[in-house]
C-alpha cells in the first residue's frame, strides 16, 4: 500500500510493550506503520515493577530476542543488576531476571521507535474501527480523523474502562495519572466482541530519602551476569543492590483492623485478581500464621528518588498504607510518592482469537497484550511481536507465524490464551510448558532460528551472530563424541583408565563439562562470540547430554501428538447439534472454536469421550 498522510499498512493502537514490538517488527519487515497513542511520552513505559525477566519470563525475553524483538536488547542496556533465578534447581528452569532503570529503558524505546522511518507516531485515541466486507478497513480517531489501513493491532492494555481503587476512592483512569479510554470497548462490544473484567494491583512508591537504609539488607545480583540478548557483546552491567525489609506483627495488625476498607474485601471490586501476585491484605489474611513477609525495595532508576516496595501490593486507603508501613523500623519516617492501588479493567477473552492473534470474526484485526487478559511486560511484548509479524503477513497474504507449544514459551502462551478460560490475569509459568526441558533460556536462539530466518525477522548482523553460536554448539557436540580416558577428567578422583566417548561420561551426575580435558575442544571460537555466550553454550550442550533421556521422552510425546495438532477443524463447525457431545462440551467448543483437534483436547472440561465424538464427526 502506498503511504500517504492518512493511509498505512498497519495501525498499532497503543504504545506499551505489545504495541512497540508490533510496530517495530512490522516496520522492520517493510510495513508502513502508524502507532496511535494517547501519550507519545509514555512509549514502552514500565508501569509496574522495575524488572524484566524472572521465572519463565526470562526464557520468553530470550525468545523475543531470537525472533527479532526489542525487549532483551533494551533491557541489557538499561539493566541495573542481573540474577539467574533457580540456578540450583535444574537447568531447564534457569531464568534470567534484571532490575531495570525505567527511565533509561523508556528513553531507549522512544529514541528507537521515533527513529524508525516506517513508523509514524500519531497522538490520539482510536474510538472506532472501519469495516469493509468483514475485513478491517481503517480506524477513526476521537477527533474524527480517519486512517485507512489493511490491519490493526489493538494493544490498549489497562486503558480499557479502567477504574483505579485506593481505599474507598474510585478514579476512572488507565494507569495512575493517565487518562483512560472510553469508546473503543463499547465499539468492539457493538461489533459483537465479548468482554470480561479483570483486576490487578501495584504497591506504593516511597521517597528514597525517607527510608532509613541502615535498617535494610542489601541484595546484589550475580557476579557473572547473563544478558537477555544474543546480540549483547561483552557484557559488563552495573550491580546495583536492591534492599529487603520484613513486615512484622504490628504491620499485620493494622492491615487486619482495616481490611474492610480494602475494596477487594468490601466488595467494591468485581474483577478477578491474580492469585500468583496477592496483595498484602491477602497475604496477611490467608497466611495469618506467617509472622512476617519479605519486601523488596527496588530503585526505579539509577539514583532514583522513587522506590518500588515489591511485595506490598495493596488497595487500602493511603493513610493505612503509611501507618502500617511505619511499623517497619526502616520505614519509621516513610513518605509515599504514590500509594499502592488496585485497577479494574476490561479485556477481550482471547478465545475470540486465532493462534495468529487475529480475531476469528474480523479479518485484519489483531489483539495483543493486556487486552487479551495477560499480565506482565514480557507476555505483552511476546504477543505484540507475533501480532506485528502476522499483521504484516496478513497484508502480504503470506503464511502467518504460529509457534507451537514444543517450540517456545510464546507458543505455549498463545495456545493457552486461545483455548483456556481466562479467570485471572494470565501469567507465564514454566509448568505451563509440557515440554519444559526443551525450552531452555540458553537454546532459544537454536530452537527459533529457523523461524526468524524464514520470516525474515533478523538483520544480517544478527543472523551471523546467531549462526556463529549455533556453529559453536555443533563443534562442542562433535568434540564430545570423541573418546577420552576417565582418568583425564579433572576433579574426579578415580584411578581408572576406562576409555569411552566423552558424552557418555558426561551423563554421570558428578561429571561436569568443564571438568573434561581442555584438549578435547580443539577448535577455536570465533572472536565475535563473547565469553558469557561461550560459557552458556557449553552449559547448554551439557544439559542436552545430561537430560538426553528426558529430551527423548519429550520428543516421542511430541511425535505422538503431531497428528492431533495437524487435524484442522473448520471455524464455522456446528457443535450444537452433535449427538453424543455433552452439553458442557457443546458450549465450550462453540465458545472457543478450536482450530485443531489438539487445541480441542486442551479446552477445559473437554473429555476424551467428547474428543472421540468429534473425531468421528469431523474426520470421517
Amino acid at each position, binding site marked *: 500500500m502506498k503511504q500517504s498522510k492518512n493511509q498505512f499498512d498497519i495501525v498499532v493502537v497503543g504504545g506499551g510493550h505489545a504495541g512497540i514490538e508490533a510496530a517495530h517488527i512490522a516496520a522492520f519487515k517493510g510495513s508502513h506503520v502508524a502507532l496511535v497513542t494517547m501519550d507519545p511520552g509514555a512509549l514502552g513505559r514500565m508501569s509496574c515493577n522495575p524488572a524484566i525477566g524472572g521465572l519463565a519470563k526470562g526464557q520468553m525475553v530470550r525468545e523475543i530476542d531470537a525472533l527479532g524483538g526489542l525487549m532483551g536488547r533494551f533491557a541489557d542496556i538499561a539493566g541495573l543488576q542481573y540474577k539467574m533465578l*533457580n540456578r540450583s*534447581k*535444574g537447568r531447564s*528452569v534457569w531464568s534470567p531476571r534484571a532490575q531495570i532503570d525505567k527511565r533509561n529503558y523508556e528513553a531507549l524505546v522512544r529514541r528507537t521507535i521515533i527513529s524508525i522511518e516506517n513508523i509514524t507516531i500519531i497522538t490520539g485515541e482510536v474510538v472506532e474501527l472501519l469495516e469493509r466486507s468483514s475485513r478491517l478497513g481503517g480506524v477513526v480517531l476521537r477527533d474524527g480523523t480517519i486512517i485507512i489501513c489493511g490491519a490493526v493491532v489493538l494493544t490498549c492494555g489497562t486503558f480499557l474502562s479502567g477504574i483505579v481503587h485506593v481505599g474507598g476512592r474510585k478514579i476512572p483512569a488507565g494507569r495512575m495519572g493517565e487518562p483512560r479510554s472510553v469508546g473503543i470497548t463499547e465499539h468492539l462490544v457493538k461489533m459483537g466482541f465479548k468482554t470480561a473484567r479483570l483486576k490487578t494491583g501495584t504497591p506504593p512508591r516511597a521517597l528514597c530519602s525517607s527510608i532509613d537504609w541502615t535498617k535494610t539488607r542489601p541484595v546484589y545480583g550475580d557476579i557473572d551476569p547473563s544478558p537477555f540478548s544474543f546480540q549483547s557483546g561483552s557484557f559488563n552491567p552495573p550491580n546495583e543492590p536492591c534492599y529487603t525489609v520484613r513486615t512484622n506483627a504490628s504491620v499485620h495488625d493494622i492491615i487486619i483492623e482495616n481490611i474492610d476498607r480494602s475494596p477487594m474485601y468490601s466488595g467494591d471490586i468485581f474483577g478477578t485478581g491474580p492469585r*500468583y501476585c496477592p496483595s498484602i491484605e491477602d497475604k496477611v489474611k490467608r497466611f495469618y500464621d506467617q509472622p512476617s513477609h519479605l519486601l523488596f525495595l527496588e530503585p526505579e532508576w539509577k539514583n532514583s528518588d522513587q522506590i518500588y516496595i515489591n511485595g506490598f501490593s495493596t488497595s487500602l486507603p493511603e493513610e493505612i498504607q503509611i501507618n502500617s508501613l511505619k511499623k517497619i523500623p526502616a520505614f519509621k519516617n516513610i513518605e509515599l510518592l504514590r500509594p499502592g492501588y488496585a485497577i479494574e479493567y476490561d479485556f477481550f477473552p482471547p478465545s475470540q482469537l486465532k493462534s495468529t492473534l487475529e480475531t476469528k470474526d474480523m479479518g485484519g484485526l489483531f489483539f495483543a497484550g493486556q487486552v487479551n487478559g495477560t499480565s506482565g511486560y514480557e507476555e505483552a511484548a511476546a504477543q505484540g511481536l507475533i501480532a506485528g509479524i502476522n499483521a504484516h503477513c496478513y497484508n502480504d497474504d503470506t503464511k502467518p507465524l504460529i509457534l507451537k507449544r514444543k517450540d517456545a514459551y510464546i507458543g505455549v502462551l498463545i495456545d493457552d490464551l486461545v483455548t483456556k478460560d481466562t479467570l485471572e490475569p494470565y501469567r507465564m509459568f*514454566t509448568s505451563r510448558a509440557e515440554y519444559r526441558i526443551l525450552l531452555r533460556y540458553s537454546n532459544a536462539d537454536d530452537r527459533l532460528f529457523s523461524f526468524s530466518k524464514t520470516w525474515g525477522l533478523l538483520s544480517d548482523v544478527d543472523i551471523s551472530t546467531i549462526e556463529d553460536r549455533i556453529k559453536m554448539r555443533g563443534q562442542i557436540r562433535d568434540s564430545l563424541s570423541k573418546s577420552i580416558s576417565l582418568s583425564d577428567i579433572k576433579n574426579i578422583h578415580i584411578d581408572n583408565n576406562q576409555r569411552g566417548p566423552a558424552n557418555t561420561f558426561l551423563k554421570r551426575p558428578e561429571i561436569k563439562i568443564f571438568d573434561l580435558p581442555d584438549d578435547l575442544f580443539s577448535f577455536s571460537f570465533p572472536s565475535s562470540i563473547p565469553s558469557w555466550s561461550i560459557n552458556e553454550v557449553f552449559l547448554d550442550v551439557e544439559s542436552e547430554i545430561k537430560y538426553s533421556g528426558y529430551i527423548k521422552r519429550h520428543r516421542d510425546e511430541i511425535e*505422538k501428538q503431531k497428528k492431533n495438532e495437524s487435524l484442522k477443524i473448520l471455524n464455522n463447525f456446528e457443535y450444537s447439534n452433535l449427538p453424543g457431545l455433552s452439553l458442557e462440551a457443546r458450549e465450550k467448543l462453540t465458545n472457543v472454536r478450536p482450530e485443531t483437534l489438539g487445541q480441542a483436547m486442551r479446552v477445559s472440561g473437554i*473429555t476424551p469421550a467428547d474428543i*472421540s465424538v468429534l473425531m468421528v464427526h469431523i474426520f470421517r
Partner: protein
Amino acid sequence: MPNYVKTDTYYSSATPPGHSAISIIRMSGPLCLKALCKITKKARKKIIPRNAILTKLYSNNGHVIDMAVVTYYPAPFSYTGKDVVEISCHGSPVIVESVSLSLLKLGLRLSTPGEFTRDAFLNGKLDLVQAESVARLIQSKSQRAAEMNSRILQGDLTKKLFKIKECLVDALSMVEFELDISEEDIFRRGIKKHSLAKLKIAKEYCGSLITSYNEGRMYNKGLRIAILGRPNVGKSTLFNAIIERDRAITSKEPGTTRDTIDVSFSIGGIPVTLVDTAGIRESTDEIEKTGVERTMSEIKRCDLIVVLSEADTESELQDSFSKVPTIKAINKIDLLEKTKLSKLERTPNGQLFISALKKTGIEKLKDEIYKKINFSEKNTADVFLTTQRQFNSLLECGENIDRAINLLARGSMVFDIVSVDIKSAVASLDILLGKTTADDILNNIFENFCVGK
C-alpha cells in the same frame, strides 16, 4: 476407524444364541420407542418408562410372534445414555429371528460388537476402566472374577487410581511450587520431605495394585498347573485321578506320554487348566525328545507346578524352575512298607504322600493347590488389575515414581526432571482413567467386546 457413533438405532440379542427359557433383545437409539409401538401395536402413552409390560409381539404382516415382556428406558437414564428398549421373549432361535427381522424392517440395524458399552462410555455413563470391566464381566470364568469385575464396574478401581493420582498431583504441586513461585535458591526441607512422603504413598498403592494383577488375571483367565516328574512316576495316573476321568493314557511303560495334554476344570471356583507332561529324561527317541522340550516350555507358562516323584528317588528337578510355585508330592505310597511310610511322614519336608492309583491323598493335594493359588487372604486390597493394559500402565507409573523418588532421595536438585517423572506417572494413570486416551486405544478396547455389550 470404525464409524461407531451413529445417530441411528441398533439392536442385538443380549443373550447367547440357542434354546433357552428366555432371550433378551435389546435396542438403543432414537427409533426405539417408535419401533416398540409398532411391534406391540401399542400407543406411545401406554409405554410407561421403566415398567415391565406384558404384551404380544407382532410381525410386520400382523402375525403374532410371541408373548413377551418389554421395558422402555428413555434417555438419558439408560445403560447407553440413549433411549433403550429390552424385549424378553421366549428363548427360541425362530422367535428371536422373527423379532430381529421385524426390527430390521422398521429401520433398525444390528449392532456392532461392543456398541452398547461404547455408547455408554461416550455418553459418560462409564469410564474407560469400567467399560473394560464390562467385557471382562461377561467373559469372567469364575464367580470370584465376576465379583471382582463388578466391583471395578462400580468404580472401586477408578477410585483407587484417583487416590494414587491425588498423591502424585500433591507431590507435583510442591515441586512445581519450588520451580515456579519460590525465587529462593534454597529448597525448603519440609517441601522435599512432604513430596517424598506423598510419592512413597503413591508408590505403595501402585505396588499393591501391581501385585494384585497376577491374582486378577488368575480369576479371569484361570490358572495353569502342570504335573512334572521323571518318566513312569505316575503323572498321567495322577492327572486322571484329579480330573476324575481317564483322559490320559497310562501304562507301565516309561515314556508313555509323549505330548502335553490339558484339561480345564475348576478348583474352589477358580478355573484351572491341568497339564500332563512327558516325563523328563535324556532320550534318543526323536518324538520323546520333542515331548520333553514341550514339557520344559510348559514350565514357563505355568502358574503352579506339581512335582511328582517316588519315595526312593527324591526329585532333583525343582531347582530348574524354582521361580514357579511348586507342590512336591511322593507317589506310589501304596507300594511302600508301612514302617517306611510312617517314617517319611514324620519328617515331611513339605511333600505330600499320595497314591494316584489308589486315589489316596488326592483331596489333600487339591486342598494344597487351592491354598497355594488362593491369594485372597493375603490381598486385602479387594481391588484388582485385570487387564494387561492396566498392568502395563501401573508398571510404568511405578517406574516413574521410583525414578522421582530416587532423584529426590539422592538429594539431587534437578527438580525439572523430577517433575517430568511425576508428570509421566500421572500420564500413565490418565490412560486408565480415560482422560488422555487416544482413539486407537479406544477402538482396541471396544473391539474386544462381544455383540450386545
